[in-house]
């Protein structure tokens, strides 16, 4: 049986024990809460750190993708420039060849071979005119031979006698010579840079 105690409740030993236990439980709860809060805080900090790292990695990935797109754009521009340069080179070469062809025909004209029509179709060309004789046409072919390389060597596709007109010279052979130079294949981009189909596919000089 518990002894009778005349002290107020707050001063008794049982109250001291309860206060001690309560304090201990309170401190334990406080410590537990603090530990839980610290754990949550550290988890949040770790989560924020990971999220920051992910955001940084994503930003770096975006930058790399942008740089890659830029590089592809530059590469495409370089390819287009290269194709354009190749086309310019091809046109220059074609111009040089035509110039040489013009010189050769000019040497033969008007003596022996007369050029009436000069039709160009890309690397191919076609000459049509009047010649005094077949040997003159043959001489013309020999003079044209060094202007290659040829994909299709200069050849006579038509040689026929024409009726003599009044007051004209003695030329009586109508000839047609055609050939095609050998050129490197142009890139697709270069094709797109070529003249549009609305323009005539070939030029005719008369």
């Amino acid at each position, binding site marked *: 049986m*518990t002894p*009778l105690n*005349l*002290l107020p409740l707050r001063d*008794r030993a049982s109250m001291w024990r309860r206060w001690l236990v309560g304090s201990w439980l309170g401190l334990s709860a406080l410590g537990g809460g603090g530990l839980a809060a610290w754990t949550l805080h550290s988890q949040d900090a770790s989560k924020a750190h990971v999220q920051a790292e992910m955001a940084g990695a994503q930003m770096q990935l975006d930058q790399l993708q942008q740089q890659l797109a830029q590089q592809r754009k530059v590469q495409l521009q370089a390819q287009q420039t290269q194709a354009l340069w190749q086309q310019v080179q091809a046109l220059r070469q074609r111009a040089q060849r035509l110039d040489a062809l013009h010189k050769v025909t000019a040497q033969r004209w008007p003596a022996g071979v007369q050029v009436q029509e000069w039709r160009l179709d890309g690397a191919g060309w076609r000459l049509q005119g009047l010649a005094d004789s077949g040997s003159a046409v043959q001489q013309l072919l020999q003079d044209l031979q060094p202007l290659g390389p040829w994909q299709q060597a200069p050849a006579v596709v038509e040689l026929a006698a024409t009726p003599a007109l009044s007051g004209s010279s003695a030329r009586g052979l109508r000839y047609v010579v055609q050939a095609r130079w050998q050129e490197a294949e142009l890139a697709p981009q270069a094709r797109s840079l070529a003249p549009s189909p609305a323009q005539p596919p070939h030029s005719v000089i008369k």
Partner: protein
Amino acid sequence: MQCFVRGWRRTPVWLGLSIHDQRMTLVEWHAVAATQAPLSRWAQEEWVPSTQPAPGLWDEPAKSGATLGRLWQRAGMQCRRLAMGLPANRVVLQTLQVQADCPANELRAQVNWRASQALGLNWDEVAFDYRMESPDGPQTVQWLACPLALVQAAQLMSRAAGLRLQFLGVEPAHMGLREEKQGGAPDLLPQLQVACEMARQGSQS
């Protein structure tokens, strides 16, 4: 945590105090097994009254507290948990019959009223405690009361000595403290027994 558990399971130590006439006996009491000595330290102090008739403990609690503090320091005691008892002639111990379904606050009010009536004091001038004598039998309540001034004097004395008074009971009357020898001074052994008994009751409170 282990330190707390060790301290919690440690054997409780109490100080038991017995004061009679101008002699104060203080013991340090351990609630241990019967094979071990429960009494580790004890000391006794006797003082000469400055006036005649000699004032009691309850008349000069601060002075008695200073004496108690010196006694505690001289004995080299560590414990500050104090248990002491009031003389049986300064308290009222009675019983009360209550109904089985009496609420706790009603029971407390009844004891408070009866104590104030028995002591001839106002209801807020008494200190009391009560307990059920037999929980399984009829609802008989045993209650103990004394003037609140006595409790306050005991607390003041304890604070003056630097101790914590945690139990204030009633000294056992059967130990013959009132039987003085021919020389006038009480015997040493009964005072030691009373001090140990108060410490034991304190450990059970």
